[in-house]
Structure formats: structure tokens, C-alpha cells
């Protein structure tokens, strides 16, 4: 946590990474965002905050998560592949790193009600979890389509005491859940804290969520040092929905040009099919849900409804950090189809005994798409576990 405050990868004080970011919010949210910005930068400097955050990461979330050498996967791809095991965190995905941080901010700001959006349900579960832990009321917005395909997480959120509100507008997925959460915040600006789930939204959210996720690459550095005698890998691979697990896995390597940063978006049924969530590949510059970024839109500036088998990647925007990493050439942005992700999930399960989340399976699918040298040290961020996706996996066993 100490290091974090000194790390502001090319972001300016208005929240721009290059030309992307900022705070494109209606006046109704101006006071909320100003309050959050001021309090956030004040609170993260506080020692008691840092102590409590680090204590929760160790003793509640279960960090550090292992960096597992994937022996059989490495043999197959003739390289050295490590898996960063975010799947082993409490609640089963990296999302908890962020909600633990944000709930402490919310508490210190005196907020009594928390709202969140969720796609795959992992962020919703992570938000509901920390709210249960702190005794704070929690409302989670989730699209109707996602409620059906990630039903186990809906049950978890409810058991954790959260109210899950069904969103039936638009594509009934993550973008619409995010719209509803923002509208809720407009209607409840005083008592409510909005825990956003990815590196998206208006400044300071992208920077804050990246900071809270940066623990991933902080640990990778230390673990590689021990295991390989060097602090950085040749390649880091992560999937991108909004981009938070990728931001966390890239964070401490952003300024190290020797590390290739590889992000993988959900291609859905294929870019040419039009049923895709490959925002960076198909998107254009625009303003969406509070920031200037790349987004999927039509000629008239209407947002295009995305599609991916993976609820966590099914989003038409992307965090401004990623738009910038792409535009500046610092990051490599790949895509993987539903089928490729499913195949990669079955492959990892068979070779390593780990069932990954469908989102994370997109990162694994990239192993087939890049050149891997025998000496390369490659870290794949395994952002979550596959428990929530068992229904989809059991229906798609043919991809084995």
C-alpha cells in the first residue's frame, strides 16, 4: 500500500491518461465526485487506513495469493507459465481487492448505504461481502440476462444480505446495471457510497480501482524475485472487461518496457458477426459512463449492445487506462472468442486441475495467439474461479 501513492502512471490531476479519462458527469453528481476525490486522496495517505486495508487483505481476503508454476501447461506451450491465483481469494475473484479498499473509504466518509453494479456477479458478491463484514446496507444492480447466467452469485449476494435489483433496460447486462447504479447515486447523493467494480467511470474511480488492484502486480514482483531471481516477467496476460484485473496485473510493470503487457477482450461469436464485446478492437473514442474512452458505438453515437458468453467481459466500454495503453502502443490488445475461451478453460482444468472463471479463460486463450519463447517467463492473471460458470461449462463439454 505504501508504494501505491507514489505510482501515478501518466495520469494527470484531472484524471486523464493521455487523452482518455476525466469526469464527464452531470452536475447532479458533481458534489459527490468532488467529495469522493478529496476524501479518497486524503484517506489513502492515512496510516490507520493502510493498516486496516493490509490487515484485511492478509487475514480476510487471504493474500498474498500464490503464483503457481503451471508445469504441464508450460510443457505444452514450451515456455514458463505462471498463474497468479486470484481465484484463491475469499469470494473467488480479484474483485474483493477493490471492495475491501472502497468499503474502508465509505466507512471513513460516514456513508451508511452502498450500491454496486455487477456483471458476472463477482463484484456484486465482493461488495455484498464487505458490506456484511462492516454491517452496511448494500444494493446491487444486475442485468436480467446476467441474473440468469450467473444465478449462483445472485443466491450468494442475497445470502450475504444484499438486495439484488433486476435491471431490464437496454441489453440487460453490465452496462445497464452501471447506468442504474449511477441513477441511484444521483437520487441518493448524501448517504450512499457507490462501489464501482472496475477501472471505469469518472475520475477518481479508474485511478482508485487500479490502486486497489495493484496489489496483484506488487505480489507478482516479490514472488518472481523469489522463484526466478528477477522481479519482472517477459509477458503478463490478463482479460479485460472494464479492465481492473488487467490494471492490477500490469500496474508495477507499466513503466518497465521489458515487460510485454497483453490484454484479452471477449470477442463473442467473432468480430465480423457483430456479436462481440471487443471494445478496443471495434470501438471508437467517445464519452460513456463518466469518462472519455474507447467504446462500441454506431455512426450516430449510440452505444452498441455488446455480446460475450462471459458476463464479466460483456461491456461496450473499457477503462481509460486501457484506451491509453492501446493508443500509445504500450499494451497489446488481443481478442478471444467464446469457443476459444471455453477450450482454454477445459485445457487448464485438465492440465493443472484448476477450473477458471470464463473471464479468466479468455486470458488463457491468448497463449495460443502469441509467440512464446522457451526462456520466456509468462504470468497469466487467473482473475477468478469457475464455480459460477459450472452451468455454462456443463452445457459446453463438447469443447473438451
Amino acid at each position: 500500500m505504501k508504494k501505491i501513492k507514489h505510482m501515478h502512471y501518466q495520469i494527470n490531476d484531472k484524471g486523464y491518461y493521455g487523452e482518455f479519462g476525466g469526469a464527464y458527469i452531470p452536475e447532479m453528481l458533481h458534489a459527490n465526485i468532488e467529495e469522493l476525490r478529496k476524501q479518497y486522496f486524503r484517506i489513502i495517505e492515512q496510516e490507520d487506513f493502510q493498516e486496516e486495508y493490509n490487515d484485511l487483505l492478509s487475514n480476510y481476503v487471504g493474500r498474498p495469493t500464490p503464483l503457481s508454476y503451471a508445469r504441464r501447461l508450460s510443457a505444452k506451450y514450451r515456455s514458463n507459465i505462471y498463474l497468479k491465483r486470484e481465484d484463491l481469494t475469499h469470494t473467488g475473484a480479484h474483485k474483493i481487492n477493490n471492495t475491501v479498499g472502497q468499503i474502508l473509504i465509505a466507512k471513513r466518509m460516514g456513508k451508511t448505504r452502498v450500491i454496486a453494479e455487477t456483471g458476472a456477479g463477482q463484484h456484486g458478491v465482493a461488495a455484498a461481502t464487505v458490506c456484511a463484514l462492516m454491517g452496511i446496507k448494500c444494493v446491487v444492480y444486475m442485468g436480467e440476462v446476467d441474473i440468469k447466467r450467473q444465478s449462483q452469485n445472485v443466491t450468494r449476494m442475497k445470502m450475504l444480505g444484499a438486495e439484488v435489483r433486476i435491471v431490464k433496460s437496454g441489453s440487460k447486462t453490465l452496462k445497464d446495471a452501471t447506468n442504474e447504479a449511477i441513477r441511484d447515486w444521483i437520487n441518493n447523493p448524501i448517504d450512499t457510497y457507490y462501489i464501482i467494480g472496475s477501472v471505469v467511470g469518472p475520475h477518481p474511480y479508474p485511478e482508485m480501482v487500479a490502486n486497489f488492484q495493484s496489489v496483484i502486480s506488487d505480489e507478482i514482483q516479490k514472488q518472481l524475485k523469489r522463484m526466478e531471481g528477477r522481479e519482472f516477467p517477459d509477458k503478463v496476460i490478463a482479460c479485460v472487461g472494464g479492465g481492473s484485473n488487467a490494471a492490477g496485473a500490469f500496474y508495477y510493470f507499466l513503466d518497465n518496457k521489458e515487460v510485454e503487457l497483453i490484454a484479452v477482450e471477449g470477442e463473442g461469436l467473432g468480430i465480423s458477426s457483430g456479436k462481440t464485446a471487443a471494445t478496443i478492437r471495434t470501438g471508437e473514442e467517445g464519452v460513456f459512463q463518466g469518462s472519455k474512452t474507447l467504446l462500441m458505438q454506431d455512426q450516430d453515437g449510440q452505444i452498441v449492445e455488446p455480446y460475450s458468453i462471459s458476463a464479466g467481459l460483456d461491456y461496450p466500454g473499457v477503462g481509460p487506462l486501457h484506451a491509453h495503453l492501446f493508443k500509445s502502443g504500450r499494451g497489446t490488445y488481443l481478442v478471444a472468442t467464446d469457443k476459444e475461451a471455453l477450450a482454454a478453460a477445459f485445457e487448464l482444468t485438465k492440465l493443472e486441475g484448476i477450473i477458471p472463471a470464463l473471464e479468466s479463460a479468455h486470458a488463457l486463450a491468448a497463449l495460443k495467439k502469441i509467440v512464446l519463447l522457451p526462456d520466456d517467463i509468462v504470468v497469466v492473471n487467473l482473475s477468478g474461479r469457475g464455480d459460477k460458470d459450472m452451468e455454462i461449462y456443463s452445457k459446453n463439454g463438447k469443447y473438451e
Partner: protein
Amino acid sequence: MSRLKTLFKHKNSNILNIYITAGFPALNETILIVQELEKAGVDIVEIGMPFSDPLADGPTIQASSQKAIENGITLSKIFEQVTEIRKTVQIPLILMGYFNQVLKFGVPQFFSKAREVGIDGLIIPDLPIDVYNNEYASLVDEIDLDLIFLITPQTSNKRIKMIDKLSNGFLYLVSSHSTTGSQQNLQTSQIEYFKRVKTLDLANSSLIGFGISNHDTFTVACKYANGAIIGSAFINAVANSTDLPATIHQFVLSITR
């Protein structure tokens, strides 16, 4: 002098501004609706540019936007409709829409096109005032378009004064912490806020919007501001109308009596 400035010069109370989503209820009914609104004595019409993800809007305007998009509304269609409307209609017309569509069209191009077809002012709720001031304010001065910004109960006096300086046309007082269409009655805390703004001695006239839905709320709003803006209630009225001119005249009469 712009149509808005002329209006406020000659009339400074009980101004009625009605919002209608372009392309709703049917694609080309916007033209008839604006014509009838003028005939019914409405002072300003605000034409909404339907956006797929209207963050500041409540369920009524969301639904009308979605319907209008399904009906085939586009920006170029809206500009055609306004051109047609301007053949007869004299009252000030404002476009209200989200920044992404403006950005996609090209901001300077959008501003000039709007002016060219006869639009007098713009409301772009998710264009923050500082971005506007740094990047676009000079454009607007050149083409004599009024940019209207929102203030809310949470906006500090200092900030209201800053927004007042950068605004033209009028100030849009959002009545409460809410998305559009959320409320029935005006509460004491809202009245306190209206009073606070009134004492600030601002350069622009002000209209109160969000949750103004009937004669009573309109009357209260007019006590503290130069007039009010009605959106969701009007959308609801025309949504199922079988006789638009009659519905519109009845609606306006029910507000102004």
C-alpha cells in the same frame, strides 16, 4: 439578439418550457407536437435527442428515448425535423442530449448545424462546465448559440456564480437530488434551495425543472424562478394520445389555467 434573450427581455415570469423526446411517440410527430405547443402558448420547447444510455433520466424519458430510437430517430433526422419546424414556429427551441452523440458528430460541426437549422440553445448534461469552458466556449461565442447548464441543490453558491457566468440563455435549476421525473410535491428543503438561488442576484434568468408535473408545482416553481420546465408529465400525456392537438392544448391549459 438570440430568441432566448428576446423572450426573457419581454417576459420574465411564468415561462413554460416543455420537453419532448424527438421521434416520439411516432417518428415524425415531433413536428406537429412542437407546432401545437407553440399554438397552445408554450414559451420554449426543449427537444430531446434520444440516447441509448441516458444517465440523467428517469424511467419515463428512458422509455420514450428507447421507443424513439426504435422508431428510427437519428441526429440527421432531428435536424431535418427542426428545419421543418422552423418554417412556421417562432418560439425558442433547445436541443437536449448527451455528449457522446455530439462528440461523434464533431463538436464544432454539431454546434454550427444546430444553429443553422434554427436551434437557439443546447443542454448537454454530461458535458462538465470546466471541459466546456476550456475546450468549447469560444466556439459557442462565434456562432451565437446559448449553452444552458444545470445547477442542483448540492451546487455551492460559489459554483452557481461560476456557472452563471459561463451560461447563456438561462440557468436550469434541477429541483431535487434526482433523475428526471422522480417527484410529486415540492418539499420545504427544495423551496429553501430555490430561495437561496434567488438571492444570488444572477445574470441569467432561471427555470426550474425535474419533477414539475402539474399546475401546483408549476405555480410554486414560478414563485421562485422565471418559469419551469416540464418533461416526463408531458411525455406521459402524449404517449397514449389519439388526438395530439387536443391532448397538447388540454395539457398546457391544465398547467397554466
